């Protein structure tokens, strides 16, 4: 994929993450969960890259390896032109300032025994930024940015609602002035009215601080709203990627089509007009060597089961991993 070098912030080349399956007291390895199995992806500076796919397809694992919270099995990751693979110690520490993450459940990711002032300011302490007074100033500023009141600084996470807790984790993510934030299902635990508040906040912050987002979600309506481009993941691989309107209006891969069809539309006039769905569940006990979707695919052929199709550019900037696309 040839995006202009100067605008690319993050590049993934053939990224794999396999988890060993072991058996017996000797913990002999008998197989592997191929959670991420060869992902190539470019994320441009200032854009929001949406990543969708059903649960278990590998989205969170991909997020964790980008953040170097886990080691890669294979492949290479570049951030701002530098390979992350070899980073250790202090250079990894410096990188951590540039990349942050916001998780789905702000409750379990916030330490219940710390005040929100400490939670938000933790990164500043770890990176030894500023004096205690300066750090407090910065925390209050961050709280203001995300819409928390200054007198709440000494409160604990359980005293906040879900939406406010998500604001706390956003403030924490912003503390070190990162360039890149991975949002892993940040809205899934919130009611729609609160979701809308948080989406607006994330968009405002992006504009103000030139942030780049990788926005992971299983909610296709939210992803369409917030993203510039969208990648669809299935069974550890990207199977389609395009600018959002192109993807939503001209989905090419049969799995993407099934996924989009499945979204309930808040319009009774459209209800019940869906075609019968192909089952998209990735639970075949013996997945084929080739395209993992082929057991569920209405168009599959022997070729599909034998070998995985390559990622192919069917239209400018629209990539699909399906034999129908490069026929």
């Amino acid at each position, binding site marked *: 994929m040839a995006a202009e070098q100067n605008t690319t912030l993050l590049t993934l080349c053939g990224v794999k993450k396999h988890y060993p399956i072991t058996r017996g007291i000797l913990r002999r390895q008998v197989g592997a969960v191929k959670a991420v199995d060869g992902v190539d992806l470019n994320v441009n500076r200032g854009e929001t890259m949406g990543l969708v796919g*059903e*649960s278990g397809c590998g989205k969170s694992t991909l997020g964790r390896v980008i953040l170097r919270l886990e080691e890669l099995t294979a492949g290479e990751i570049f951030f701002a032109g530098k390979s992350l693979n070899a980073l250790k110690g202090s250079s990894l520490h410096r990188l951590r300032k540039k990349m942050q993450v916001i998780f789905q459940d702000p409750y379990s990711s916030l330490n219940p025994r710390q005040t929100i002032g400490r939670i938000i300011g933790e990164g500043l302490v770890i990176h030894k930024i500023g004096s205690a007074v300066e750090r407090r100033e910065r925390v209050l500023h961050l709280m203001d940015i995300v819409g928390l009141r200054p007198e709440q600084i000494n409160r604990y996470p359980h005293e906040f*609602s879900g*939406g*406010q807790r998500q604001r706390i984790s956003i403030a924490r993510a912003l503390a070190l002035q990162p360039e890149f934030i991975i949002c892993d299902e940040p809205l899934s635990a919130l*009611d*729609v*009215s*609160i*979701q*809308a*508040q948080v*989406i*607006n906040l994330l*968009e405002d912050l992006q504009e103000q601080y030139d942030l780049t987002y990788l926005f992971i979600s*299983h909610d*296709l*309506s*939210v992803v*369409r*709203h*917030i993203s510039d481009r969208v990648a669809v993941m299935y069974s550890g691989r990207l199977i389609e990627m395009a600018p959002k*309107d192109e993807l939503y209006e001209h989905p090419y891969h049969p799995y993407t089509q*099934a*996924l989009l*069809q*499945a*979204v*309930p*539309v*808040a*319009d*009774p*006039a*459209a*209800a*019940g007009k*869906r075609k*019968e*769905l192909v*089952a*998209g*569940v990735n*639970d075949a006990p013996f997945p084929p060597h080739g395209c993992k979707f082929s057991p569920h695919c209405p168009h599959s052929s022997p070729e599909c089961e034998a070998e995985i199709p390559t990622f192919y550019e069917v239209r400018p900037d629209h990539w699909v991993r399906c034999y129908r696309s490069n026929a």
Partner: protein
Amino acid sequence: MALPVLHVKDLKTQFFTERGVVKAVDAVSLKLMKSLTLGVVGESGCGKSVTALSIMRLIQPPGRIVEGEIWFDGRDLLTLSEEAMRSIRGKEISMIFQEPMTSLNPVFRVGDQIIEILQRHETMSNKEASARTAELLKQVGIPSPRERMADYPHQMSGGMRQRVMIAMAVACSPQVIIADEPTTALDVTIQAQILDLLRKLKEETGTTVLLITHDLGVIAEVAEDVVVMYAGRAVEQARCKDIFRNPLHPYTQGLMQSIPGRTAHTGKRRLTAIPGVVPSLLELPAGCKFNTRCPHAFERCYTDPEPGLLEPDLGHPVRCWLYA
């Protein structure tokens, strides 16, 4: 006009906690019409599940139903003995929960759990019950039902477990099914299959459904009638198509505008969020309970007691002074 299959009248359910009396459901009335689906929608904490559990008479202390009537089949369920209620639960009114693991017993095979329900309510030999179970599992789209009957719940995926729950709920051909967020924990593809399944069952058997969800998309897909709840109250009631075409309550309007993609498909347009959060049920404001978040609130909304369900000339019942 036809009589409702289930008629909830002025239901009040409260929790007597150390911090005070939580009025989780405050004078809610619902009518379920035969073979139709009534959708109940609202943000979390607004009293949807407590309403459902009250109908099933499954409210546990410190909670109690303090007032109201629940008419079903010529009887007020709130006057029945626990014994009589047990024979209604699962047979005439059954319930599907969001997380099937809460109602499936992890240590029994799924087949045995369905057989047990069948034999509790109907006289059936083991052989008959087991054949009927296989049939039910097939009906809800579980492949190789005979083999799956021997599975334990944890051996199944979330979508399959939810199908088992539905099979259990329809086992005795109930008149009413109450489904509380039946698809919330599932992926969209699985959700679509489950909603199709519920729709098909309803068409085939004429079952009446009370569907609880926070997702207006799901409501639009399957409901004919809708009740919008806020802070323990029903604030708007209408036919499904009317509520989407002409939402009256500012809360309903806010919910609709919060959905991404409904209004803006291109470009990054700001979503119109409902400001603030649902107030604690222990600290509800005087007057209309939505006045802390309402963009149209005026003097009367703060000074007058909250409005009842008003019936504006052009529209449907709504609890809002704008229509007085």
